[in-house]
């Protein structure tokens, strides 16, 4: 097996051979090499994370017709390093009355919940941490740890704004977990597997986006809510809560939350690409070498990240009751209906030709989306006329 086809395996074998050659126990050498692989992945992710700060600031500047960081280095590329130095040398404060252990554990858990997702993300056909047969569910499990970290941060800070922010964020995450989980089932049904690599392999001829555009859209909305970014950023709500759950954190502890959020956004971009846009697949280029597959995957992940940023810097924040009603009354039933339609069509059209299958899947998605919008429109019209009637009668009563 050459280095060009499977570089990680070749490197790991070479290292293991070297270590056992030095007289190390083979099992121990294996564990050590696996540990080094994990460290390598984390280091690469953290380096990407550093540049995500720069990407985020540059992009938001463009959206808001500004220049963004442009003083340090070419295009301001050294700016994130200056930010990190600043964060590290800042005073590390702990509020009085804070629950110290929980307070310090929360940023670590927050970062961990993002990094742990990458254990099941296939970077290339032969490059993935764990070939887990429940990879899709693993995502939700990691999200549960993220929820926990936010509740811990909000509670242990001994600050009412932090607690309100934590409550709001958890309400959002728990609510939007349901449409997200339901939408995760759609690639599972289409691919017939919960394994991430199998889902990518099943998108050979066509991306799942073409079979389930509505599913991809709902997943993106749920992902943005899970990230707590605008229009669902009411946990931060600068205008009401100062900074939400991370208000009391300073220095690198705040940095962990911030970096975790950015990496989380890119991670969800990557997951979106895996589930609906074929992951590392791009016209067979991924089979040539992992050195081509990884850039393809990262490019797709960054495009997803860019779309999330685009939404964030275009939309305004919505109120928590609007957000919850949007989820429980609109998004959750819609995702359930879509899941049922997809599952049913998948079974009914099992023997149909590829074209019939693809076209009817696409058309059913459009139909479900259109009906949902029509129902929502007529319902909101009814609500609005009711509201107008009330205000009319009120005015008459006053007059």
């Amino acid at each position, binding site marked *: 097996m050459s280095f060009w086809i499977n570089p990680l395996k070749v490197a790991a074998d070479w290292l293991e051979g070297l270590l056992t050659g030095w007289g190390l126990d083979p099992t121990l050498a294996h564990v050590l090499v696996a540990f080094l692989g994990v460290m390598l992945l984390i280091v690469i992710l953290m380096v990407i994370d550093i540049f995500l700060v720069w990407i985020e600031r540059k992009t938001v500047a463009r959206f808001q017709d500004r220049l963004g960081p442009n003083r340090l280095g070419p295009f301001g590329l050294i700016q994130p390093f200056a930010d990190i130095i600043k964060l590290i040398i800042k005073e590390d404060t702990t509020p009085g009355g804070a*629950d110290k252990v929980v307070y310090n554990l929360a940023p670590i858990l927050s970062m961990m919940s993002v990094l742990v997702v990458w254990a099941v993300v296939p970077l290339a056909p032969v490059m993935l941490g764990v070939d887990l047969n*429940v990879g899709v569910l693993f995502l939700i*499990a990691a999200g*549960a*740890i993220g*929820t926990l970290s936010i*509740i811990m941060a909000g*509670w242990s800070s001994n600050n009412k704004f932090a607690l309100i922010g934590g409550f709001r964020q958890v309400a959002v995450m728990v609510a939007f*977990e349901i449409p997200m989980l339901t939408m995760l089932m759609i690639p599972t049904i289409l691919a017939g597997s*919960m394994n991430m690599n199998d889902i990518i392999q099943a998108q050979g001829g066509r991306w799942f986006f073409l079979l389930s555009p509505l599913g991809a859209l709902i997943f993106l909305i749920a992902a943005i809510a899970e990230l707590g970014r605008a229009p669902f950023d009411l946990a931060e709500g600068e205008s009401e809560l100062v900074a939400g759950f991370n208000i009391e954190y300073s220095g690198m502890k705040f940095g962990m939350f911030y970096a975790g959020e950015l990496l989380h956004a890119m991670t969800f971009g990557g997951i979106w690409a895996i589930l609906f846009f074929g992951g590392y697949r791009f016209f067979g280029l991924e089979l040539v070498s992992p050195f081509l597959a990884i850039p393809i995957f990262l490019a797709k992940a960054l495009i997803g990240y860019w779309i999330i940023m685009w939404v964030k810097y275009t939309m305004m924040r919505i109120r928590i009751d609007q957000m919850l009603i949007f989820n429980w009354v609109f998004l959750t039933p819609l995702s359930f209906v879509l899941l049922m339609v997809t599952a049913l069509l998948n079974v009914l059209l099992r023997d149909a030709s590829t074209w019939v299958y693809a076209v009817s899947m696409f058309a059913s998605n459009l139909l479900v989306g259109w009906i949902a919008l029509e129902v929502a429109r007529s319902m909101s019209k009814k609500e609005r006329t009711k509201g107008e009637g009330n205000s009319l009668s009120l005015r008459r009563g006053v007059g």
Partner: protein
Amino acid sequence: MSAEQIIFLVVGVFTLLAGLMVVTTRNLIHAALWLVATLFGVAVLYTLLNAGFMAVVQVVVYIGAIAILFIFAVMLTRRDLRDRGPQMNRNWWAGALIALLTFAGLFFLLSGWGSASRVAGVIPSGFDAVGQLGEQLVSPQAYVLPFEVASVLLVAAMVGAVYTAFNRK
């Protein structure tokens, strides 16, 4: 001792200690967080048994939903999150007796079982554990009845919860 046994012992001791902390700590939020740690330990034990699906579901359901619900309930219902007063009541000796008897019974049962010391069978590669589990859950020869009964129970609980919480105008 193999690596698996070392991991099992470490995780087992951690889970037991965390479980002990759940009932002994006086801060209710800490108790809930220790409960999360206990549930994590159980999830790791599932992983050691090659039951990846169970491990992930354990984290999703017990930590992602139930533990967070506990934390919310504690935060919303108590003004003071510290528990005062004695942690034992007059019947502590009866509780201790029942616990000891249960432990002795389980120990007796498992020491006579023989399977406890057997090495786990190797699962062949390509074995679709999740698919097998799904088929067992809906197959009439296997567990479709318990599965459906549990579903009906959960739906009934949900309807009851909605009815209780529903605000009649």
